[in-house]
């Protein structure tokens, strides 16, 4: 159960030089390779847009590189599109495409790389670029019942500060139903459901009365245009935005952002700060997983176990507050290190808290294995098999439960992770119980990591100055509790943000929900949601 190589891909690891050689052989002059200093190990520049699809297919399927996301930038004269892939042995590979500003359409890659589906829809909704061959564009982020098509808020000419009252919402909007069975109907859930304690999501559960055949989620009720309002602000203000658009993994997001800024200004954080960052990251992961386990137990209505897991989570929140000053670890990361240091007695308090949490979680894991009514509701529910997970590029514990063993802490280590000894657990079944088992195993790994990190602390500074005057851009990445997180930061010479892009794990994993939520009993719906543990706020930004 605990190795680091994926059982799905039985091919040999592809080395960077092999990739460069194969790319040159296949595409010749249509593709130019170069080194990159923006956090990528390789930059492939597509010179003719017609080759974009085949390049992406080559990278995703032939070379086995997981897909990271699409970053779109508007420059005065041209569009700049980055397609990010991960080469597991080496690091991030970017495929860049530069098009004149008048271009209106780009070939879509989502028929080859399904994981790019929502990325392309987002670019179309926010920038207005149409992707030829994409089956469903529009009505994605800006809902057609509230906005009309063509607003394109991420364009430079759009003023984000003014309320946009000149709207023509579609009065004839109807939900798009997929199932065409005589007598089928769609049960609406949300956006205000579960007493409001569920995040605003709208589901249409299409059914013929017994089984739900298809669940179509509709997101972006919480879209606050973080990427847009970040433009023009200085780095420390955008740090607040990066930290606070998804608070349950705030430290991970702020870490990714800070790493990107540190990369721009080529700053190396002190060793003590690196260790502390690892400890805090793992503390956050432990607390998030305790909460996710509590949510799964709650969804199956096993009340006592849910209560105990919730107690563990609350005690970890309190421990975070004592250790770092804020329950959700806000305000700790700054570019260049951490804002303040910790003392020895705080570390001891932290150890006590996490050991207690670990003991409680061990008891839970042990006893849940024997609760047959609990297992009945999780086993074979919401199954995503390995091939589908690979297809849709699922990340995080969800992907690892389906056999995709890709963890950024091992694949391209950061903040000193290469110095630690830990395992990356994975499962194969891809059902709810597999996801639960992965959560437990990762939580225990986090405990050992916190111990290792704190034990390795040496006295020293925790912060170095991080500023500069040169414009630049870089990619920062982190394995957040829910999976692969990428932050792309581009600053100008005055130190204000020109483009800020956050690619979050929840955004990637919602495609997997489509696959998991097919032909299930209606009462399994909250369980599938809980085992996926996806966050609407992280996806919506």
């Amino acid at each position, binding site marked *: 159960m605990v190795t680091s190589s994926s059982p799905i891909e039985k091919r040999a690891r592809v080395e960077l030089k092999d990739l460069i050689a194969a790319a040159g052989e296949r595409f010749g002059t249509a593709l130019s390779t170069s080194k990159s200093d923006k956090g990528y190990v390789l930059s492939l520049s597509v010179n003719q847009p017609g080759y974009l699809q085949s390049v992406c297919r080559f990278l995703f399927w032939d070379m086995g590189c997981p897909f990271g996301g699409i970053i779109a930038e508007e420059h005065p004269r041209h569009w700049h599109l980055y397609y990010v892939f991960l080469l597991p042995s080496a690091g991030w590979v970017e495929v860049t495409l530069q098009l004149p500003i008048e271009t209106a359409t780009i070939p879509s890659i*989502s*028929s*080859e790389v*399904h994981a790019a*589906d929502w990325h392309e829809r987002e670019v179309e909704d926010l920038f207005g670029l149409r992707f030829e*061959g*994409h*089956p*469903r564009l529009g009505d994605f982020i800006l809902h057609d*019942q509230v906005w009309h098509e063509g607003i394109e808020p991420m364009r430079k000419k759009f003023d984000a500060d003014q309320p946009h009252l000149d709207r023509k919402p579609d009065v004839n*909007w*109807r*939900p798009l*139903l*997929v*199932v*065409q*069975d*005589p*007598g*089928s*109907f*769609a*049960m*609406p*859930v*949300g*956006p*205000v*459901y579960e007493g409001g304690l569920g995040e*605003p999501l*709208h589901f*249409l559960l299409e*059914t*013929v*009365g*017994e089984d739900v*055949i*298809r669940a179509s989620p509709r997101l972006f009720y919480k879209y606050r245009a973080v990427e847009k309002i970040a433009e023009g602000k200085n780095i420390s203000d955008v740090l607040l935005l990066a930290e606070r658009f998804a608070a349950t993994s705030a430290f991970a997001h702020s870490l990714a952002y800070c790493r990107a800024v540190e990369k721009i200004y080529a700053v190396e954080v002190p060793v003590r700060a690196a260790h502390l960052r690892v400890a805090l990251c793992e503390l956050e992961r432990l607390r998030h997983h305790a909460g996710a386990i509590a949510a799964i137990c709650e969804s199956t209505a096993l009340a006592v176990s849910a209560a105990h897991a919730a107690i563990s989570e609350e005690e970890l929140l309190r421990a975070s507050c004592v250790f770092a000053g804020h329950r959700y670890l806000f305000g700790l990361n700054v570019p260049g290190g951490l804002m303040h240091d910790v003392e020895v007695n705080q570390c001891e308090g932290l150890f006590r808290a996490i050991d207690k949490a670990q003991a409680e979680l061990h008891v839970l894991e042990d006893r849940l294995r024997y609760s047959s009514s609990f297992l009945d509701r999780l086993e074979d529910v919401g199954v995503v098999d390995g091939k589908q997970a690979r*297809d*849709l590029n699922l990340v995080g514990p969800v992907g690892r439960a389906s056999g995709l063993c890709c963890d950024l802490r091992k694949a391209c280590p950061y903040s000193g992770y290469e110095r630690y000894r830990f395992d990356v657990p994975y499962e194969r079944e891809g059902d709810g119980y597999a996801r639960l088992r992965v959560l437990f195993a990762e939580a225990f790994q986090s405990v050992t990591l916190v111990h290792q990190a704190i034990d390795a602390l040496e006295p020293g500074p925790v912060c170095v100055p991080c500023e500069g005057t040169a414009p630049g851009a870089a990619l920062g990445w982190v394995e957040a509790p829910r999976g692969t997180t990428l932050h792309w930061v581009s600053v100008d010479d005055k130190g204000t943000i020109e483009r800020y892009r956050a690619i979050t794990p929840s955004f990637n994993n919602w*495609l997997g929900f*489509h*696959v998991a939520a097919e032909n299930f009993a209606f009462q399994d719906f909250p369980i599938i949601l809980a085992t996926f543990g996806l966050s609407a706020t992280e996806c919506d930004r």
Partner: protein
Amino acid sequence: MMASITAASLVLFFVSCACGVLLSALVDRKHSGDVVAIAGTLSSLFMMLASAAVLVTGRSFEATLWVLQGFGPFTLRLDALSSVFLFAAGMVYFSISLFVRDFIGDQFEATHPAHRYGVMYFGLMASVGLILAANDALLFLISWECMSILCFLLINYEPQQQTDRSAGYIMLAMSEAGFLAIVIAFLILGKAAPDFSFRALGLASGGLSNRGLWSVFLLGFLGFGVKAGLVPVNFWLPRSYTAAPSLFIPVFAGVTLNLGFYGILRLNGDLVHSAYGTGVFALIVGSLTALVGILYATTESDMKTMLAYSSVENAGIVVAGLGAFLIYRASGHPVASAIALTAALYHIFNHSIYKTLLFQGTAYVEAETGTRDMDQLGGLSRLLPGLSVIFLVASLAISAVPPFNGFVSEWMTLQALLRCAVLSSASIKIVFALCGAALALTAALAVTCFVKTYAMSFLGVRRGAWKPQLHTQAGTRFPLVFLAVVCLLLGILPAYVIPILNRAVEPLAEASATSSLVPPFFTANSSNQELPPAFLQDFHNLGAQSGRKVLPGRGLVILLRGSAENPVVFAMSPSYSFAALAIMLFIAWFVVTRLTRQRATARRELWAGGIPRLFPEMTYTATGFSNPVRVVFQAVFRPNITEDTRQTVAVHFRTAIRRRRDETPVVDRLFLRPIGQAMGGVARFLAGMHHGRLNAYVAYVLGFLLIILFLFRAA
């Protein structure tokens, strides 16, 4: 004098039917509705008058029409049993005739020449009267055949679709097969009889061997069972009901269905005193029919087909009661057999009333919206408020909810099954228990079915894309209201209905239902010697003597006496319950509206989770409501679901998922298909024998000769 009233009414009935036939054939389209209404109303009134005269006095009416050389006399006889059925038929026809008038000009004008329907309508009415009044087998059979053919014509005269035509042919084929079985049954019976009059046949039945009794029973049961809609011979019924013109379906469901029961009762209850096992057979077939009928009714979303299957279910309940009657009679328990037969007759009567009401409501709905599919309907209670109340009454009645009539008859049927405690054999009691359980399940499913029907059609929001079409006159409502009131009255005054039905029950069951079931009013110094004084005092204290001075009749409580240790086996009084219910409702209304402070009521939008509005496709459909039943009883339905997925971009992006559900009804699967395949196999074999070669044909003749010689060798 009463006899003359009966005679006169009968004569006038036939005369007005004949007038109806002639006028319908001659009068033009515009007035045909009036012809049907006037002549039909008159005929049905005469029907009811004739039968009422017989039931009230208890004296039957006999008349000889003419004598055929060698076959015997054609005689008419209206006894109590026939009169019960005749009265029910009269009520149904009365309601239909008035209902049809407003629709004929409107709906049928474009597609069907309405006047020819009138011909068949009145012909059918006359043949029904003849069947019920016939006192000899020949007249009976001739009028039965006329009835079958006219039913066929009613469907196939101007069929709207190909399926309608094939439905008509299937019905005709089954009717003829049933007719054949009935003829053979009468022939077996009449082998030893001097002529074919029912009296002679009844006397001859005493000399039949056990095998003869069984063959008469089976042939008669299955032959009449075709018309009654019993499993395994009822696969024509849903198709034909769906194909029949909406306005005339109540004739099928309210009249010809009852003829099947009449035939079974006449043949096996009256003429032949069947053996013990035949009752068990009838009970089991009835329970199975009821269960299969309601299962398909619950999962059906076309209103007409659903009501057809519901008729099958009610037929099953009736036949289960009849089976119990036969068993009790054969094992010498007259009181229990009287209860069972009363229950069955009551249910037949009730079914005619509320099924007519439901079908008329469906016709109304179809005229208003253009569709019968419950998945497309919804929100009709705002468009048709009066109809929705009446449909609700009919749904409650058929779901056996007090205070309506379905409750009384189903309750009595189940109680009759529970009376199996008086039987001695344990295996029979097990059979009764299982059949009782099946009927209880049926009753529960019937409630589901009609909750679905009423809620999905009348409540909620409009789901389909239809527009309201109908502008009706007030006259249409009278027959519906009339029947609804009858439903209520039959439900709250069973103590008056039972003595009337008793006139038919007593000769057959050899015990009086009235004296068993309806005790006189419970007065302190009552003259009722059968009941112990303490018992009387209890009931007197409960108030079971109210209304004695005002109301006629024996009493208002239905009660079966048991032994000394267990004085009351069962007791109920829908009359008093209804009175108590009315009083409580009045008190509640008074308190709420007059005595409590009026609070401000705010009307807000429907809460749907925050979405802009609740679209119709987000509300439950009829299929969705009943799908759990389909899933639980999957072994019966065996649906074949094929999924056809259409995708646009590789595998992950679905634009449409289409699923088709192919289902063959269980009766088709288990009976029609195998029989058809066997017949087909036989036909193919025979066709293979006819290849045209002369030598072979000579060989056939030779072979046949040899066989005959062998069979008739020295005897």
